[in-house]
């Protein structure tokens, strides 16, 4: 293994705080008595609802059908009866229709032995169809099938095992416990893409994952590289730069540099959908933070309420509850929010951990500029947006912002730069 590589310029080094969960094996969570399954667990339109109140649903049965290329199928994560259809507000503030399923009947799939499918015998179209039928969605909300259906034949598949977000260890545990399955998913994705090489990037602070993955990668054409721990190392474009040396053009996508990036959790879901015919109905989620009594990595059914996950870990001792990562996640005002495909963590952070302070005027220290991995000037963009000058902000690169939050993280005046820029981007997109 060579010395850790990384992106240059910008980024921050937040405390890792991964130790409470990094060495704990993934635990199976209890099946919830009631699952609340949003029909929008992806970037695009909500899936079209296929069930009505009173319908009996089996485990893994589709309950929502994709409505467009950025939309994906949604499946019943538990067997039971559709109790209610309602509209809920997701943590990011978007509204989504959701299906409430009351647990009932027997588990048709769980615990039954499965014969693995020989995916090498399948055509590219059949593989993609399996991914669509399984409702596999990447961490950024783009369905895996859509991501892999790119034109222009990328040469490299980049496997994102960086996990640079503090607290989160679910990817790390997956790589330690399910390295073969993850690499099988990578092989499937590479086959669909026609990509010649597979590059796995893992931050150097996960020695176990690096060792296991490197061992599993022997002989399957993958290269495992250690990355310098630095947030946001997991950003797609930075991963591509660090692992392949290819520069993604400003404001462009990894595909523009001939690479496709997929997260290890997504690869596991690809493996399960293709080889085991299992739809995307459960995921591993890190439950951590000082407000959680017994932090853990749980393998839980989608639709499990956050409250149940916290309960499973000894209950909530207080603090700010966040879903997702500590840098990019969303704070919750209620604990009935369900687990979704993209939710890697449930964190309860104490005041000591968040180090919150009151806002003061900007003193122009330039820390946000130094921290921005894209070389933007967050403070200037923020001020233009504050004055309603959206066009001016866009001409200064607002479109290149990936909302990583480094600027807000370092701002001594505690200006909500990320919030300002993100809302400006939403206004710009509308």
């Amino acid at each position, binding site marked *: 293994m060579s010395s850790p590589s990384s992106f240059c310029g910008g980024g921050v080094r937040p405390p890792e705080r991964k130790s409470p969960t990094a060495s704990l094996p993934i635990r199976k969570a209890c099946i919830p008595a009631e699952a609340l399954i949003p029909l929008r667990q992806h970037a695009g339109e909500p899936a079209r609802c296929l069930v009505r109140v009173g319908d009996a649903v089996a485990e893994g049965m589709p309950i929502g059908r994709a409505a467009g290329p950025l939309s994906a199928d949604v499946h019943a994560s538990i067997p039971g009866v559709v109790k209610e259809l309602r509209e809920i507000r997701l943590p990011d503030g978007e509204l989504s229709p959701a299906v409430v399923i009351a647990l009932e009947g027997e588990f048709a799939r769980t615990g039954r032995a499965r014969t693995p499918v020989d995916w090498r015998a399948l055509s590219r179209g059949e593989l993609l169809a399996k991914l669509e039928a399984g409702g596999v969605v990447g961490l950024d909300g783009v369905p895996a099938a859509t991501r892999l259906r790119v034109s222009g034949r990328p040469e490299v598949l980049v496997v994102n095992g960086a996990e640079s977000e503090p607290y989160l260890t679910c990817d790390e545990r997956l790589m330690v416990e399910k390295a073969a399955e993850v690499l099988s998913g990578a092989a499937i994705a590479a086959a669909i893409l026609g990509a010649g090489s597979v590059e796995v990037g893992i931050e150097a602070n996960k020695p176990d994952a690096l060792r296991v993955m490197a061992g599993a990668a022997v002989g399957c054409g993958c290269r495992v590289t250690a990355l310098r721990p630095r947030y946001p190392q997991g950003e797609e474009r930075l991963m591509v730069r660090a692992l392949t040396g290819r520069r993604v053009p400003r404001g462009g996508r990894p595909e523009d540099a001939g690479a496709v990036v997929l997260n290890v959790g997504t690869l596991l879901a690809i493996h399960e959908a293709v080889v085991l015919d299992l739809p995307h109905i459960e995921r591993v989620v890190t439950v951590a933070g000082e407000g959680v009594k017994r932090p853990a990595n749980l393998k839980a059914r989608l639709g499990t309420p956050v409250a149940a996950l916290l309960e499973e870990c000894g209950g909530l001792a207080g603090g*700010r509850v966040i879903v997702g990562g500590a840098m990019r996640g*969303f704070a919750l005002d209620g604990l009935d929010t369900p687990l979704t495909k993209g939710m890697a963590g449930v964190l309860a952070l104490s005041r000591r951990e968040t180090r*919150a*302070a*009151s806002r003061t005027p900007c003193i122009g220290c330039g820390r946000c500029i130094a921290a921005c991995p894209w070389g933007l000037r967050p*403070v200037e963009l923020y001020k233009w947006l504050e004055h309603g000058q959206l066009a001016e902000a866009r001409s200064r690169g607002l479109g290149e912002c990936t909302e990583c939050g480094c600027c807000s993280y370092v701002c*001594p005046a505690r200006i909500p730069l990320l919030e300002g820029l993100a809302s400006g981007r939403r206004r710009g997109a509308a």
Partner: protein
Amino acid sequence: MTAPGPLAPAPHLHAGTTTRGLMLSVAACLLPAGTWGVLVLGPRALAVLAVAVGASLLTELLIAGLAWKSFTLADGSALLTGLLAGFTLPVSVPLFIPAVAAAFAVAVVKMTFGGLGRNWMNPALGGRLFVTFSWPALLAVGAFPGSVSGGGWVRVPPWQLDGSLLGGSGTLGAVSTLLLALGSVYLLARRIVAWEIPLTFAAGYALTVWALAGLPAGEGLFRGDVPAALGSGGFALAAFYMATDPVTSPQGRAGRLAFGAGCGLLSFLLRAYGGRPEGPFLAVALMNLFVPLLNRLGSPTAGKG
């Protein structure tokens, strides 16, 4: 507004720095040099410093309280402004001078523009300039040497008096370049101030002094006395504490490098040709004018890439 409520915006972690922390760190780093200065220069130095700090705090308290009904002393910037203003003044001045300098700094240079972060000129420097040009005779060069070693508790050896490292002129900020630099080492190591500005400031100043300072005296090129220039006249205070004021210096790296270099060149010009020992202060104030233009350096705009 951003109180840690249930719906606080991301990110939910923070590096932990606060504006007040930054201001107080800088103020604390002035302490060694200030203490030494008081020991060398005597109680008069303490009086100048106390009047400057008092006037600064009082002005900020009055304006923020009466006009905006807010309490802003807690951010520590008024304290720092008062300290810096006191450091720049010869201790021999009548005590109304530090009061006027600090009050002008806070009221005109800072609060007029809306308070902390909105001013474009370094307040302490603005105050220093106001008294320099208003009462030139009281702040003249001649006022420096007479006060040295008068009434201090510590006797500086005579060979140190002309210079620099431990005991120089009769200004708190010029008594010890060494201790000021020591304080700034901490600030630089903790990344509290930008390293780019002191670097190019010192480099630009030293190079021009070395190359050109011999010319006015007819000694030819490359004969300048660099250690004497770096070790006196408030260069250290200007380079490490004034030019690095985040509010009134550029934000990007390219802008900062250019800003420091400009400060260095102007310092030399004003010091060697203008006959002003406070050249570095004037140079920083002049460069403050160019900060908005320097901020355009290296700024990402449309059409790039």
